[in-house]
């Protein structure tokens, strides 16, 4: 596996890993930061962290694509808030089964996820976007939408659960 090769300092394995997963990291960072230069910085930072600490990823607990996507989102939000990373990548375990970087399975899964998001009530989708991609707190979302805090919390949690059920009905 490529991550194993990286442990022994194999630069070619890193290049292959980049080919496969750079689009995932860059897309997520760009969605959060809305700026290509800042997204490139996050891309660089995430791959350098993986190069320096490949043991941070535990293949037995989930897919590399899912793990990198969450790490990229968190680092992009840190950059957006101009703060230091809060949680070390060693401590981020992501339960995400399919390794969805490329291929037909990935395309089908992506269609299902995007379909679920499209069919979600607009207010729920907006709450998810604001919390996840814009880095707004629940309180900020409640103030922005004029809705009770409890409603926002419920919308976000049930929205995430709805995505889980798409791939694990």
């Amino acid at each position, binding site marked *: 596996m490529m991550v194993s090769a990286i*442990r*022994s*300092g194999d*630069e070619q394995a*890193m290049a292959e890993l*980049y080919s496969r997963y*750079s*689009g*995932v990291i*860059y*897309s*997520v960072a760009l969605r959060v930061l809305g700026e*290509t230069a800042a*997204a*490139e910085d996050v*891309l*660089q930072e995430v*791959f*350098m962290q993986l*190069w320096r600490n490949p043991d941070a990823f535990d293949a037995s*607990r*989930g*897919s590399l*694509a*899912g793990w990198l*996507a*969450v790490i990229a*989102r*968190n680092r992009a*939000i*840190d950059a957006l808030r*101009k*703060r*230091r990373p*809060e*949680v070390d990548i060693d401590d*981020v*375990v*992501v*339960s*995400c*089964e399919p390794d*969805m970087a490329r291929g037909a399975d990935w395309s089908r899964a*992506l269609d299902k*996820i995007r379909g679920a*998001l499209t069919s979600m009530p607009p207010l729920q989708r907006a709450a*998810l976007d604001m*919390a*996840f*991609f814009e880095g707004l*707190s*629940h309180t900020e979302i409640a103030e922005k939408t004029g809705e009770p805090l409890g409603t926002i*919390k419920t919308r*976000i*949690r049930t929205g*995430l*659960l709805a*995505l*889980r059920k798409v*791939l694990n009905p």
Partner: protein
Amino acid sequence: MSVHEQFADDILLYALGELTSAQRAELEKHLQTCVDCRHDLEQLRGDMALLALSATGAEPPLRSRERLMSAIAKEPRRAQLVQRPQPQRRVWWRPFAWAAGAAAAIVIMLLLHQNANLQRSIAGLEADSTVQQQQLTQAKDMMASLTSADAEHFILVGSKTPPQPQGKAIYVRRSGTLVFLANNMPALPPQKAYELWLIPTAGAPIPAGVFKPGASGNATVINPPLPAGIEAKTFAITVEPEAGSAVPTSQPIMVAAQS
């Protein structure tokens, strides 16, 4: 869903990176001992991964690949573990079992001796750790005193000189750590704030914290998010909108000279 409903909200906020450091520390303590809540957190992060993956589609520019591979080539290489082939098991020693027994006894004595040495080393390390813990506590107490709201600041100036704005930045390049203390800062116009900038020896100024002085004109900036390893040419302060700016939008009102 978690069996600990009282933690469910906090786990979601933790996964999204919304908890304060105190709340985070408290939850992390609970997570260390609660398998169910850890499972809940991992599942939520899995859901977040799906949401994140829904954003895929963009591809980075080619220069990003070159930048990464060039940075990796400059990194110190990790020691590669070389696995030596294991020799075949042989049974030639069986007639000399007595010799093997004697050798085992010698090895055991050596191990016991080594164990005693290790015990002494551990005791030494524990003593060092205690000293370092005390030094850390003293440093924390010092920092708490410096940044305390009721700390009194005294600045000695010439008797006829009115107090001038003054800032002191203490910067550790290796770790990107910065402590900044300011005194006698003039009051700001409405909806404005001071922004501290790290001016690197090469490249654009880097935001190093936004601050508003109190009524007495004092302010502190402790450990703003800075990348490690940036060589600072100097530090400067500009007046910016309250939310801060990514690049300076006004002329510096103060520039540091390294002491």
